């Protein structure tokens, strides 16, 4: 990813350069379009599932929703929608949802057919990713409106991006096995995690050492998650707001 030359922060808590800031800068002709498009592609790849589930919640079939989601990305690039972004008016999540609604309202049948017939795929996708997206839609389609499903899917995509970032870090340090053993303390599930004492015995380490590893894992995950959020917002305060907002979506409080 290219960095932006001279994008000095106007406010003290603005991040130096993120995917979102690069996209916004391109809209102001302060960054190369190719750089912005690469940033946009990466974000759309990460948040493909929320886009797909939103389209599905509009009543489109599985196949049409896949085509439309791909076409939407092409629409963002070809029509330089990112050039219309007003950074003061919101975060990447808000921008993307508004743009998707506009796209679905205005996309003509001929445009859709053209994209579908051409078989042009702008975002590389795996079958597993498509299956997971459909599973997400099936799980939540009866629980809320289309905006809620989008936000719910966004939260899911966000935490998974954070976990993948963390997993990659441990792998790079040749500590993947440790990560896999300890991740149960991070990812609450249906079953309660083992006690520190039991796991310490199984792993052959002191309980105090295990606790230290878990504390560090949680701290590193927190930073990985917030790093992912930073790609889509402007300030550290907005990182907090984004996490709070998504948590409220999930818990309904």
């Amino acid at each position, binding site marked *: 990813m290219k960095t932006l030359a001279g994008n000095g922060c106007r406010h003290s808590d603005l991040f130096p350069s993120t995917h979102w800031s690069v996209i916004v800068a391109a809209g102001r002709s302060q960054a190369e379009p190719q750089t912005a498009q690469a940033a946009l592609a990466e974000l759309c790849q990460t948040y493909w599932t929320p886009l797909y589930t939103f389209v599905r919640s509009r009543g489109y079939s599985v196949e049409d929703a896949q085509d439309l989601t791909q076409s939407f990305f092409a629409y963002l690039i070809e029509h330089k929608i990112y050039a219309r972004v007003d950074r003061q008016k919101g975060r990447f999540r808000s921008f993307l949802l508004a743009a998707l609604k506009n796209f679905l309202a205005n996309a003509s049948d001929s445009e859709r057919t053209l994209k579908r017939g051409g078989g042009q795929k702008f975002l590389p996708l795996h079958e597993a990713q498509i299956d*997971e997206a459909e*599973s*997400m839609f*099936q*799980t939540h389609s009866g629980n809320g409106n289309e905006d809620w499903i989008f936000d719910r899917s966004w*939260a*899911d995509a*966000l*935490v*998974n991006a*954070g*976990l993948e970032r963390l997993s990659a870090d441990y792998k790079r340090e040749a500590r993947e096995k440790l990560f896999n053993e300890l991740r149960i303390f*991070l*990812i*609450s*599930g*249906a*079953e*309660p995690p083992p006690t520190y004492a039991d796991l310490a015995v199984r792993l052959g*380490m*002191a309980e*105090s*050492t295990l606790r*230290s*590893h878990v*504390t*560090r894992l*949680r*701290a*590193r*995950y*927190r*930073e990985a*998650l*917030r790093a992912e*959020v930073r790609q889509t917002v402007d300030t550290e305060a907005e990182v*907090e707001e984004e*996490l*709070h907002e*998504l*948590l409220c979506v*999930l*818990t309904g409080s």
Partner: protein
Amino acid sequence: MAIAVTICSVCREPLNAKGQCVACLLRTGLDKSVVETKSPASLVFGDFEIARREDGSLWDSVAARWG
């Protein structure tokens, strides 16, 4: 199609398709104590852990804990 939803053992929120509690994972991102309880500069060597005090000095936190 009805999908059975499993509940988190910690917060009772529904788990996602991978069996993860997204709510708990978001809370961890908001939990300031996660970073405040332990300096990221601390290091673990076997049973020993070298942590950093607020003034920047280092100490063996595990040895100190067990006297």
